[in-house]
Structure formats: structure tokens, C-alpha cells
């Protein structure tokens, strides 16, 4: 773990008294390696290590009897500052229905997360409606309908020959006539560089003005996480992130990169394939996982 590596690196100076510049450099190199191995974006790591360096050459580390522990403490603090701090509740509309729109790359976990979110809202006493706006992927609508059946939550669909904008609008009328106070709109996976598909999302956003746009990101995403998040955020002004598949052993550095580049909060984490597997995000847990 990073803590152990830093202990080793700085242990050689036990009894030496003060840290030298080279000692600090060595410690920072360990931090850089740990974050890169955890998939944090290269440029984000550079900026982050600079921040650590500014504090590491200060008294708190240089004159400490346990410099390694001090560095770890600083890294942890800076990581948590980056990861947490912002509110992670869903936006609720003052005029129902509240509309939540799930967006993201292919296979990231949008449809499954839509079902999981509907379940959480239902348990909170809400009347959610799932809306099937993925008209491209074979059996995407069927997939959402099966999840709805399992949860006894209604699924609005207009089949796969209609425009997602019309489906989104249709879900609004359906929600009002069926007393649903929250709509969770599932959209097709798409590339952030697919102009036509990104435009489609913009049109859906304009048509129904979602209260919450959630970017669904796979926790095992590598360096590209920054490109994806930045693009989706610039084009849609997302409200938050759902980080999926955290039940694996990916360190999840993408979470740090995405937060650093968009400033948007991670609101939920997917912790498994079952519909109950969605939890609130804990910045401190994520920080220690990234550090490894």
C-alpha cells in the first residue's frame, strides 16, 4: 500500500532528524506512482502531487518525528478535500415530476442503475416511473421492463421506432396521468465524441428539462475518464455521477479525475448486479481505496 511504501521510503531517515529535498522528492514519487497505478489521470496526478509538495516542504512534515505518517495524512486530507465536500443529494423538483436522466458511455451501467435508483426512491415513499428512451440497443427496452417488473415499478415505453425526445415528453404526460412524482429516464450508451448522439441528449434535455442529469461511469475506467466526463459535462452540465462496479478490485482513480475536472459530486456507487446494490458515496472510503 502507499502507506507502507512511504514508510519504507522515509524509514531510512529515522533518526536523521530533518528531511532533505531528495527525501521529499522520493516520497512524492511514491505518491505519483500510487495514483497512476490507481488510474488517476496523468495530468491530475501532476497537479495533485504539486499540491502535496507545497505542504510536504512545510514544517508539518520536515520537522516531524514521523514524516511518512505526516505525508500520508496530507495526501489523505487533500484527496478527501478533492473527493468530498459537496452535497450528494438528488435534486428534487419544486413542481413534480422530478426528472432524472441517466447518461454515459456504452455498458457503464445506466439501465441497471436506473432500476436501482427507482428502488431507492420507491422505498423512500416516492412514486417513480422508469422511462425507456434507448431505442438502439437490442432488447434495451425489454431489459428495463424486466427490472420494472421485478420492482413492481411502472416502465414507460413507446417502442424502439420513436425518437427519444418524443419518448421523454411522453413519459411526462404518462407521469402526470398516473401520479408518478419522479421519472428516471434511461438513455442509450454513446460516445462523448459522437456529435449526433450528444446532440440527441441535448434535445432531450431541452425538451423535458431534467432536474438531475447523472453521468454513469464504470469504476474501472482508465485515463480516458477525464475526456468522457469533461465532454458530457460541457455539453449537458451534469449534476452528478454514479460510479458503478465498485464491487470489483479496480482502485477507482477515475473517480478522482472526474471530480477534479468537473467539480461535480459523485452521488451514488454501484456495488453489485442486484437491484439493491446502490449506495451513497463515501469520499473517505474512496480516497483510501485509491491510495491502495
Amino acid at each position, binding site marked *: 500500500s502507499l502507506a507502507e511504501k512511504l514508510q519504507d521510503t522515509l524509514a531510512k531517515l529515522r533518526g536523521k532528524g530533518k528531511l532533505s529535498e531528495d527525501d521529499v522528492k522520493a516520497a512524492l514519487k511514491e505518491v505519483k506512482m500510487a495514483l497512476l497505478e490507481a488510474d488517476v489521470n496523468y495530468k491530475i496526478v501532476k497537479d495533485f502531487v504539486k499540491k502535496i509538495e507545497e505542504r510536504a516542504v512545510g514544517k508539518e512534515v520536515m520537522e516531524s518525528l514521523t514524516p511518512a505518517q505526516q505525508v500520508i495524512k496530507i495526501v489523505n486530507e487533500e484527496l478527501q478535500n478533492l473527493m468530498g465536500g459537496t452535497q450528494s443529494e438528488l435534486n428534487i423538483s419544486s413542481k413534480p415530476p422530478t426528472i432524472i436522466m441517466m447518461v454515459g458511455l456504452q455498458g457503464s451501467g445506466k439501465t441497471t442503475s436506473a432500476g436501482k435508483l427507482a428502488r431507492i426512491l420507491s422505498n423512500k415513499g416516492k412514486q417513480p416511473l422508469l422511462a425507456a428512451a434507448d431505442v438502439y440497443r437490442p432488447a434495451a427496452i425489454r431489459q428495463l421492463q424486466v427490472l420494472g417488473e421485478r420492482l413492481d415499478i411502472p416502465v414507460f415505453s413507446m417502442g424502439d421506432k420513436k425518437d427519444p425526445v418524443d419518448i421523454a415528453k411522453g413519459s411526462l404526460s404518462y407521469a402526470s396521468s398516473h401520479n408518478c412524482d419522479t421519472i428516471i429516464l434511461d438513455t442509450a450508451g454513446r460516445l462523448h465524441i459522437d456529435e449526433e448522439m450528444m446532440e440527441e441528449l441535448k434535445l432531450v434535455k431541452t425538451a423535458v428539462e431534467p432536474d438531475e442529469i447523472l453521468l454513469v461511469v464504470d469504476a474501472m475506467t482508465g485515463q480516458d475518464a477525464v475526456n468522457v466526463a469533461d465532454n458530457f459535462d460541457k455539453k449537458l452540465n451534469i449534476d452528478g455521477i454514479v460510479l458503478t462496479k465498485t464491487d470489483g*478490485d479496480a482502485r477507482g482513480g477515475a473517480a478522482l479525475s472526474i471530480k477534479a475536472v468537473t467539480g461535480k459530486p459523485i452521488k451514488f456507487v454501484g456495488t453489485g448486479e442486484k437491484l439493491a446494490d446502490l449506495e451513497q458515496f463515501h469520499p473517505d472510503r474512496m480516497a483510501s481505496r485509491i491510495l491502495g
Partner: protein
Amino acid sequence: FSGRSGIDDDLFEELEEVLIQADVGVKTTFALIENLKEDVENEDIKEPEVLMDYFHKELKKLLQDEEGGIGLDDKLNIIMVVGVNGAGKTTTIAKIAGRFKEQGKRVMLAAGDTFRAGAIEQLQIWGDRLGINVISQQEGSDAAAVAYDAVQAAKAREMDLLIIDTAGRLHTQKNLMEELKKVKRIIDAQAAENNASVEVLLVLDATTGQNAISQAKIFNDAVKVDGIVLTKLDGTAKGGIVVAVKNELNIPIKLIGVGEAAEDLQDFNPEEFIKALFS
């Protein structure tokens, strides 16, 4: 790199940056650059352009395998497709099936994901679109039973190729990896009885970071992977993870996915891949 005046630390740092940002990973990047530095000494390389050309050739050697793409034997060929959730297994199966159907081969599919909502229907729709039969059972049935039925059916109907879909699973889920081993055992046993060949393809998503190495290791330990399919290369991710995987496990990279349609499948071409890595 060609605009540079000489080979210096800055050049190597820039190279490190390109490789790490391409998801080649810290460990593999450092190993590659250390080797490169030695070669610069031994081969007395002075020009950055010569260095890059040399490096491209070294990477090509690493990534090359005599088996880009997939070939079929003159018998029933069974391909089992595995990988973590959402990597692109089902779609890749449709692409491979479409390719061989167009070549006049007799192809059959098995809906081995009996767990996820809509999984069987998803493969059935692909089967309908391609005019290919899909062997399936009820959702919730035993994946091994579907595999067993499928091999029997493929042999009986004299198929050239049977492709078996499996449910996505994280390599860290021990019980699901045990299930996968069981399905593989059934397939191997049936293949032996029916003079069929078996190949396992691991699907890796190009957007994946260093976790791909762990995925490849554990899937390989469970069911011996014969080849890798790298999907979603039509995005902005470079897929450098395959450099690390090839370096550590020497599993051939056979195919790449470059889109969501049936024709979006290409044989892995190391030269083009390396070119894209540095672009």
C-alpha cells in the same frame, strides 16, 4: 517527437506521458522505457526519429502474434466468450457470427447468459437480424445446461461454428468464476466427445484502466484465454492495457471492436494500433 533536437530526459519523460495516458500503465511503461534507454546506448541511437522508429518496431514485436483475427478448423469450432460486465461480449458475438455467416459458414449461437435482465432476448434479436439460430433456455436456467444443449445441437446440425455467450462477471466474484469453470468443463467434455475445437475469447473494454491486467490474469487462470478482443476502440481511449496484458501474459490480441454495428469488427493490426497510440 520528430521536431526534437536530441535524445534527452525530456524526450523520455514525454514518452512516459504518452504511454501512461494511453493506459499502458506505470509498470509496463517503466520497463519499456528502461529497455529503450539500454538500446539507445547499445545501438548508439542519436536521432529522436530513429529512436521512435526503433521503439515502434519493438512494440510491434511485443504485440504481434501469428494469429491476428480468428481462423476456423475443418470441424465444429466452439468459441466461448467471457469478460466483465458491459465489456461488449454479446455484441462482439454478433459481429463474429455475422463475419463467418458472410463467408458461407454455418453458424449457431448459445444464449449462455441466463442471469441478466433481457440478455437472452438481446442475443435472440441479433440472431434474427443475422439469420442465425440461437439455442436458449429460460432465464434463470443453468448456464452449463445451455452450453451442453448447444454443443449437442451444433453437432447434430453440422455447424461450422458455435459461439457461446456468458454472463458478465467481475473476476473478483469467486462463485461466478467457479460457475464459469464449470461451464468450460462441460464444453470441453462435449467438445472431446464430438471432435470439436474450443477457443476462449476474453473481451476487454478499451476504456478500462489497469484493472484489465487483473481481469486477464484471473480469467486466464480460470479458463485459459486463447485470445483477446479489445472493444470500443472507436472512442478516445487508446486501449494501451493490451500492451501490459501481452507483456505480462502473452495472450494474443485477435480482434478489435470499433462500433456497435455487426460490421464493426476488425482483425487486430499491431502497426495501426501503435500508430494510433502515438497520435
